[in-house]
């Protein structure tokens, strides 16, 4: 039955757009109000379903970027020019519009403040969304667990949540950017793809047994996870979430 929850069974729920924020030229965050939302955990995702007038349906998964408080579910969506779902979400949706979603889903790629740190978060592009839920939860819970975010973006203009990340920094959180395609004048940070040397410099090292979360396009995740294991991190502590060539 639509809108009811039986055990752990998922049901499609109506979600109403309440706010849309431009994050970068290609990325928007869409906040939904979901009646009867029972909350979620940082790192979980939802499935979004769009139905055309002729009944054709398309479905994609999006990580929840908002921390687990209240009824708001925020999805950060990158517009893919040849995408089936993302251009609709980023270009067509307006406050008051309704879509269908189900969730929250997942338990593997999840962090709870009670698990503590150190935390090493590695994000490629919009893969930062579930990691942002963790950082927002960490800040909201008053946790000062040692946390590092290594965030790979194409350019400074493409850095999602740029201002908020700057505000969150401190209290045990360090944010390191790498800009892979173009860098602003005077840029002194990393300007290459994530590699083992970079991960070793950002730390924490394997001896500190950090919980590691890596999210992004598949090839990004594979390269980062391989480098982490090469550095000596226990593969069991490296949790990964891949979203394909360029994402949903």
């Amino acid at each position, binding site marked *: 039955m639509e809108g009811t929850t*039986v*055990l*752990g*069974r*998922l049901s499609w729920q109506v979600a109403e757009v309440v706010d849309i924020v431009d994050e970068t030229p290609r990325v928007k965050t869409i906040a939904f109000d979901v009646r009867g939302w029972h909350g979620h955990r940082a790192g979980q*995702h939802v*499935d979004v379903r769009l139905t055309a007038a002729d009944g054709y349906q398309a479905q994609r*998964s999006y990580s929840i970027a908002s921390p687990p408080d209240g009824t708001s579910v925020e999805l950060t969506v990158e517009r893919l020019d040849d995408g089936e779902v993302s251009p609709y979400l980023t270009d067509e949706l307006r406050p008051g519009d309704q879509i269908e979603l*189900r*969730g929250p*889903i*997942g*338990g*593997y*790629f999840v962090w709870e403040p009670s698990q503590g740190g150190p935390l090493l978060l590695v994000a490629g592009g919009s893969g930062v969304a579930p990691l942002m839920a963790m950082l927002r939860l960490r800040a909201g819970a008053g946790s000062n667990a040692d946390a590092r975010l290594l965030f790979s973006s194409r350019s400074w203009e493409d850095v999602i949540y740029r201002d908020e990340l700057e505000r969150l920094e401190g209290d045990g959180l360090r944010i390191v950017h790498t800009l892979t395609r173009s860098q602003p004048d005077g840029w002194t940070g990393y300007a290459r793809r994530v590699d083992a040397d970079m991960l070793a410099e950002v730390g924490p090292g394997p001896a500190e047994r950090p919980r590691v979360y890596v999210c992004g*396009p*598949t*090839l990004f995740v*594979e390269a980062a996870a391989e480098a982490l294991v090469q550095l000596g991190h226990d593969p069991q502590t490296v*949790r*990964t*979430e*891949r*979203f*394909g*060539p360029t994402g949903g």
Partner: protein
Amino acid sequence: MDALMLDGNAIAGMLQEVFAVEMTMAMGTCGNCGAAEPMGATHVFKGAGVVMRCPHCDTVLAKVVRSDTRLWLSFPGMRALEVSP
């Protein structure tokens, strides 16, 4: 390296439809190499159906094919699946 490869997180919603519990933390044991991994860590390939492979030895753990009204599951290479109800 396959840029289209996903992982068990990508099909968590579909698995939960069938098993009615959160499935990314369910432990699957590979029938070939014996490694036990959470479903979230398996390698997933989507085509006409979904193929889940062992992240250690690439054995096909499970296949899922769906139509509008039905879902077919097979477990050619999974020795055990441990679920928390």
